[in-house]
């Protein structure tokens, strides 16, 4: 196997041949001020303009040395296309939903031209630009929100979780099922546009819900999604999810992107034979506040533990020093 970035990542996704070194990837955003300066683009432009999106993603490979490029930095592209009011933020502030269109759990109407709405079209165009620039050499990652996360945006997180707590399962399931086709369509469109891999981000995190909620409401839906899409998927659920790793492995995804709070050795031991593991470098203490030596130490721990794709655990803080991102790459370049 030729050890180019794409091949290293794809081999890691399927637990395949080892190249000359571990692969470094970012299933979620590594956009930070330093990278914006190098790419000469900023937020909110990089959420709304395909070329700016692609430029910023490319900087992650060209300036920092990551083996992947991932051009979607927000978690609200789908919600915007579905009619939620979005504040697109600025250089220092990530976008978020301002008003929830289905707070009353009314039916979600998916526009027939959903994929052509500007906030979705821009992602598809950015992926195609990246394909033309680095296709075959660098792994191109897309990102789509799952129905659970979209429910937070359409109904409001507290409102949605209150319905879960009240045991209003018909209401909750109806919303999830109405959103599921959005996830499937956007994933397949991202593959068609040029993604090698797509991240399915669905925040059924331990900070909010229990493993039993995931099992009851979301696992069956994730199994349907994975059965309906045409390419490799990485599941992203942040927080300490040690209590539900096996459930994630049953979802049909090819990899799980996880936080440092889940011990890397433990994760590999428990589910590493069924799915690949990605991420594991701590954001708030290590990448944001730590020194490159701290990052190096954690990256080497993850590599030794058998994590397949090394990278930040989640979207990084915007003020993360670029030197700390480079320290992940340097640790991986030391080889196995």
């Amino acid at each position, binding site marked *: 196997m030729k050890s180019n970035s794409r091949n290293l990542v794809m081999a890691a996704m399927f637990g395949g041949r080892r190249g000359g070194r571990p692969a470094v990837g970012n299933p979620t955003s590594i956009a930070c001020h330093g990278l914006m300066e190098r790419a000469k683009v900023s937020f909110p432009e990089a959420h709304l303009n395909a070329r700016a999106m692609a430029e910023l993603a490319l900087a992650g490979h060209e300036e920092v040395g990551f083996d992947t490029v991932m051009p979607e930095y927000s978690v609200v592209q789908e919600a915007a296309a579905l009619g939620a009011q979005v504040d697109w933020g600025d250089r220092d502030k990530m976008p978020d939903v301002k008003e929830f269109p289905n707070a009353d759990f009314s039916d979600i109407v998916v526009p027939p031209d959903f994929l052509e709405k500007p906030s979705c079209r821009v992602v598809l165009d950015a992926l195609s630009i990246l394909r033309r620039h680095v296709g075959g050499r660098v792994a191109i990652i897309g990102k789509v929100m799952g129905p659970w996360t979209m429910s937070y945006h359409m109904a409001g997180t*507290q409102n949605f979780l*209150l319905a879960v*707590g*009240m045991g209003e399962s018909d209401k909750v399931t109806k919303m999830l099922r109405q959103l599921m086709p959005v996830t499937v369509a956007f994933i397949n469109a991202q593959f068609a546009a040029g993604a090698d891999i797509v991240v399915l981000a669905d925040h059924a995190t331990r*900070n*909010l819900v229990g493993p039993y909620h995931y099992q009851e409401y979301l696992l069956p839906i994730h199994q349907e999604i994975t059965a309906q899409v045409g390419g490799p998927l990485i599941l992203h659920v942040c927080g300490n999810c040690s209590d539900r790793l096996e459930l994630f492995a049953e979802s049909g995804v090819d990899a799980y992107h996880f936080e440092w709070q889940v011990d890397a050795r433990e994760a590999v031991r428990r589910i590493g034979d069924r799915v690949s593991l990605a991420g594991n470098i701590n954001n708030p203490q290590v990448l944001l*506040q730590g020194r490159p030596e701290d990052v190096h130490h954690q990256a080497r721990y993850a590599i030794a533990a058998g994590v397949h794709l090394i990278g930040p655990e989640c979207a990084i*803080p915007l003020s993360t020093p670029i030197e700390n991102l480079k320290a992940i790459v340097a640790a991986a370049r030391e080889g196995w």
Partner: protein
Amino acid sequence: MSDHLDRIKAAVIGGRHGEIKALVQQALEAGADPSTLINDALIAAMDVVGTDFGAGRIFVPEMLVSAVTMKAGLDVVKPRLAAGESRSRGTVVMATVKGDLHDIGKNLVSMMLEGAGFKVMDLGVDLSVEKLVDQVRTIQPDILGLSALLTTTMPEMQKVIGELQRQGLRDRVKVLVGGAPVDPGFAEKIGADGYGANAAEAVALARRIVDAKG
């Protein structure tokens, strides 16, 4: 009487929101002391809920329903409190910092603090440093509670503390911080007065602070 209190406590812990008003009404009609009912049933129940949440036995959906149940019970009891009994334990200003629209954690803490007898002024989400400092000057709370869910927004907490210092207000208010990415080390580093890992811890911390003030 303890039967009534036990039933109310169990209803809050179990999130049986449909039953709580009738249960509290029955207890009051049976002669329960309103203040005892609040402290030994409603708040005591939320202490159990907070402990279960901290231990990972229950999660936000269950905690939200318990908090809603407690609040419904409080609404029945509060008008029955004597004037002296309804005096607040202290004033807390709560807010999610700039750039962050997440409010569940803050809302839970606010509900629990209210239940514990604090006067809570919830300023909402996405609060700029300037607005927060202005509100501290105007309201003069005992405690400022700052919340952030995102690693991208947690540095705002440090800016708020810095600005309070610059404007000479830092000694007049205790600053407590919380939220998923925040930890005791971060709280110490930015000069906060305390950190709560969950709503129950936040309430315990607030109680300690006002008790220490006397």
